[in-house]
């Protein structure tokens, strides 16, 4: 098992290095000069000395290879430099928002698991019944509905309901307070974006649970268990669900890694000061250092989540590690 983990960790390196090269080149492909874009985006003229100073400050006056070396060196020790917009260290800017985004991501994952596994299982067990059709429609709608629209609908629902019940409209708070400081306040703020993102996430996982369960329920050992007279509930819980969970774990892992993409839009709707909002701001403010750092963070999370999923997979199904 240790050998397998080491091999998987080593395989992460080329992906991360490739992503670093790609994001570095992408940022350098931007037409024009970043300093010009920042200082004269309205079309005005800039003093050449100011421009030179700006380039020296950012480091864009250095040769490309030297710039790449600085970027990679910083990446290795998680030092991404300073934000070109606020001038503060990027690691501090990210640290401020990471907690919030991580909490929303975890809550959305829990929402997805809580919805997907029971719904997918019921749908498979009651295949082609009205329950199955309702669950399938619910999950297809989840994939089709943009999470930011669902977010707007949730806000609309909260406004209308609170006005009808309490007379005055209520809106979720927008100032982040950690969960351990004030759990009620924290949850009243983050439960809504978690629901909006979690529903879409659950839709993908429900479809996967259903198809995996349908496959497993047709296996010989399930038929044997039935023939032996094992209770139906026990067959579903102990024999079928356990084996069907493998692909579901994979999809939950992959979706968790991609959650960052979904959060970019959801955070905007709920006005949350998380990583997604920071990403959009860094793009609109031409803060390329920040954009590079955030992209690398997302790719790093993706690679790490994949690693965890693979290890979990190998742990759950010993055949996988013996085959390699």
């Amino acid at each position, binding site marked *: 098992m240790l050998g397998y983990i080491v091999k998987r960790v080593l395989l992460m390196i080329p992906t991360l290095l490739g*992503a670093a090269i790609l994001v570095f080149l992408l940022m350098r492909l931007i037409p024009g000069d970043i300093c010009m874009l920042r200082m004269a985006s309205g079309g005005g003229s800039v003093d050449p000395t100011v421009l030179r100073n700006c380039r020296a400050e950012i480091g864009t006056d250095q040769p490309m290879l030297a710039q790449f070396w600085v970027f990679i060196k910083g990446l290795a020790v998680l030092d991404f430099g300073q934000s070109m917009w606020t001038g503060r260290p990027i690691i501090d800017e990210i640290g401020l928002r990471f907690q919030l985004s991580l909490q929303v991501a975890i809550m959305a994952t829990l929402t997805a698991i809580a919805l997907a596994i029971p719904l997918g299982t019921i749908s498979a067990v009651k295949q082609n019944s009205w329950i199955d059709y309702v669950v399938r429609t619910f999950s297809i709608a989840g994939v089709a509905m943009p999470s930011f629209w669902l977010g707007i609908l949730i806000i609309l629902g909260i406004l209308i309901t609170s006005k009808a019940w309490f007379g005055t409209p209520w809106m979720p708070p927008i100032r982040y307070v950690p969960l351990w400081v004030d759990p009620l306040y924290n949850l009243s703020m983050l439960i809504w974006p978690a629901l909006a993102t979690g529903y879409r996430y659950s839709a993908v996982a429900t479809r996967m649970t259903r198809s995996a369960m349908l496959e497993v329920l047709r296996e010989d050992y399930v038929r044997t268990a039935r023939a032996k007279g094992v209770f139906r509930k026990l067959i579903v819980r102990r024999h079928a669900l356990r084996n069907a969970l493998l692909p579901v774990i994979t999809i939950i892992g992959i979706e968790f890694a991609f959650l960052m993409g979904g959060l970019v839009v959801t955070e905007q709707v709920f006005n949350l000061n998380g990583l997604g909002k920071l990403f959009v701001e860094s793009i609109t403010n031409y803060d390329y250092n920040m954009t590079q750092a955030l992209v690398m963070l997302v790719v790093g999370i993706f690679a790490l989540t994949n690693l965890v999923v693979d290890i979990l997979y190998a742990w759950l199904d010993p055949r996988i590690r013996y085959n390699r």
Partner: protein
Amino acid sequence: MAILSESAPQTARRSTVLSSIWQFCRQNPLGAAGAVVVFVMGFMAIFADFVTWNDPTRNNFGVMLEPPSADYWLGTDQYGRDLYSRIVYGARTALMVGFVSAFVGATIGLILGVASAYFGGRFDLIFQRVMDVLMAFPLVILALAVVSIFGTGVENVILAITIPFIPRCARVVRSSALAVRETPYIDAARACGFSHTRIVLRHMVPNVMAPYLIMMTAAVGQAILIEASLSFLGLGVQEPVPAWGLMLRGGAQEYAESAPWVAIFPGIAISLAVFGFNLFGDALRDWLDPKLKS
């Protein structure tokens, strides 16, 4: 007699086409529903000039935030623009972005995937690592990065959505192409001395059309969603071009309570379109995959 002999096969062909459509609808009622949604959307997008009567870009401050009425079927937005017209013309934007990016992304992915499988060896290894790197970027993040380089607007949004689709399609097509590469007719083509281009394009590509078509249909729905997300963030299609995501930006949230139609209808349009393409794509996959068909 000659007329009779010519029309007979034509009638037979027509009836075969009709019967296979009927069979598709009977076997996949959900897929047929999806196809209807796609068809209606396409019709509205093409004939937008004939099915609307208000200019989708004209501000009319006398009728700001009007609720749905006989004149304004779906109400008006904060600038007094007709929401129905904007949704119909928005279908044109959504379909254009959806189809072009899905077609170009899937086609480039098809050629690269087949070539990777055909040449194998070091080329395949390096190519797959590049695809790994591209696939490590979430769709929206990569699209946002591309938009930050090339700027906003319909053409750049298409480019931003096309690039992330290429590795996804290439990966799926490659796995099918690997099986095709081992078939005797590819060996025969090689033995005949055909060029690599000819073998890839004439002999391998037509045999991996099923995964290509499936990927393309699925990609249209995804592209519509990403376009809506980018436009919602203000980094996609720009005003005054009617686009569904853009319609949900700004006013939709601000006036959610007093004029909920501004927030509700564009969202329904996006969801319906993606819902239609997903259902149609699922049915197409079942129909084209003989294993699922049986």
